């Protein structure tokens, strides 16, 4: 189901009430300058004067501000939350931009020109003409190791990332493997260690993509970026190489073997099923006739 941009009765009224895409022009210019410097210094966190948004921190205020600064009226916007188009967060942000920017929205990855995401990268490969905007809670990959901003800034400036390797080493000594499963640190273009936002490490290899990737952290007031075709390497050791892991099962709805899966508890007896986290990918496969172990043939408007 694609939410059409055609039927927007509130458009005229809302465009008079809001500046295009909610933010005022001076704020957008400030954010746009930060985005350009972010693209010029891949992986470096550019400070910006984050604004109060009409939603709480943690709901994607950074991503929303970056999207607002990058959006044009011709765009088609897709918003996902953990891969799903239909969660409260995704629906709220989609409605926000329908109302304040009057842009068309979609749930189909291929149809979207701008995709705002919370904690997933779509399964479908993104194209050069697409933009992926990440919502980031804690942009500083070293923050949980070193609480002081003064210190972490110095560590980035000196390229002093030994502490991060110690953390991964301690994972191995404690668990026998690198136990970090999400927000897995990456090194961008051989220089800055970057937090890819809490995407599962399954998604890390996809970050070397054709689309522009922008990251916005509202509460922490940082913007960073990865241009297309930029080297993004997940940190690891020669004897403990990085592994993009996922649940070892196919999707129970569409049978996909290659997509990231959510584990769903079905009853009090502990029955569980695995389903694609990317709802559009799963729906697309079911429409194409793929049926998983517990799936049924796809029907339009099946609730």
């Amino acid at each position, binding site marked *: 189901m694609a939410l059409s941009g055609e039927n927007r009765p509130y458009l005229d009224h809302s465009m008079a009430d809001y500046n295009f895409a909610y933010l005022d*022009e001076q704020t957008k*210019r400030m954010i746009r*300058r930060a985005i*350009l*410097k972010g693209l010029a210094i891949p992986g*470096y966190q550019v400070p910006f004067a984050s604004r109060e948004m009409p939603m709480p921190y943690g709901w994607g205020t950074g991503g929303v501000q970056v999207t607002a600064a990058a959006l*044009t009226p011709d765009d088609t916007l897709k918003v996902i939350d953990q891969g799903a188009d239909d969660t409260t967060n995704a629906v709220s942000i989609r409605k926000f931009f329908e109302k304040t920017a009057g842009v068309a929205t979609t749930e189909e990855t291929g149809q979207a020109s701008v995709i705002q995401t919370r904690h997933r990268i779509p399964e479908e490969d993104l194209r050069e003409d697409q933009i992926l905007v990440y919502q980031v809670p804690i942009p500083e990959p070293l923050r949980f190791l070193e609480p002081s901003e003064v210190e972490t*800034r110095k560590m980035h400036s000196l390229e002093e990332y030994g502490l991060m390797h110690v953390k991964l080493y301690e994972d191995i000594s404690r668990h026998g493997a690198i136990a970090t499963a999400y927000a897995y640190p990456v090194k961008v273009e051989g220089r*800055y260690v970057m937090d890819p936002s809490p995407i599962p490490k399954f998604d890390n290899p996809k970050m070397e993509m054709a689309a522009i990737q922008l990251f916005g952290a509202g509460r922490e007031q940082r913007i960073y970026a990865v241009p*297309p075709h930029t080297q993004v390497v997940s940190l690891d050791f020669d004897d403990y190489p990085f592994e993009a892991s996922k649940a070892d099962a196919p999707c129970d709805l569409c049978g996909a073997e290659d997509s990231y899966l959510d584990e769903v508890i079905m009853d009090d007896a502990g029955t569980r099923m695995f389903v694609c986290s990317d709802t559009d990918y799963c729906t697309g496969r079911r429409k194409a006739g793929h049926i998983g172990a517990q799936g049924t043939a796809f029907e339009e408007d099946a609730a």
Partner: protein
Amino acid sequence: MNSDILKGGFANVPVESAHAFRDIMNVMAKPGEIREVAGAMPPAPLSIAAGVTLLTLCDPETPVFLAECTDTKDVRDWIAFHIGAPISNKADAMFAVGTWATLAPIEEFAIGTSEYPDRSATLIVACDTLESTGAVLRGPGIKTTTHLSLPETRAFQQNAALFPLGLDFLFTAGNRIAAVPRTTKVETS
């Protein structure tokens, strides 16, 4: 006051600056790619693309350096009326406008600090033409290699060697715009 300088700004600021920024962002993310922008009619010698860039990115918070060739009364008045950016010296400038020859020596512009490499100048370089020929570019944003008619190569090699510090360049000719950020490795073809 010359009433012409009151003209030439964006007619619909939110929409035109959004389109312009998308193009500027794309050329910065994909060095060497040339795009066409529209919406501004700045006084000579500023090109349409230079005017669009200033309108889109500059405001009273961004000191702008005008190189000798662009430092005319009309340009100053136009920037004062439409943008409100303070005209500054090289060292304090966040943006600079001029031809390659008049912007030199570029060593005087801010290249950022090791803790804040983003505090560096962006140079808007006026060119006669802008074509996908000449110098070979490679680096982030470029799949393999691409070409861009740069005024020279040595300065960009020296700038890239400063990474993560350094200057970022936007090249303008008429309504055409392209970019070379500090990450781009430039070689003669």
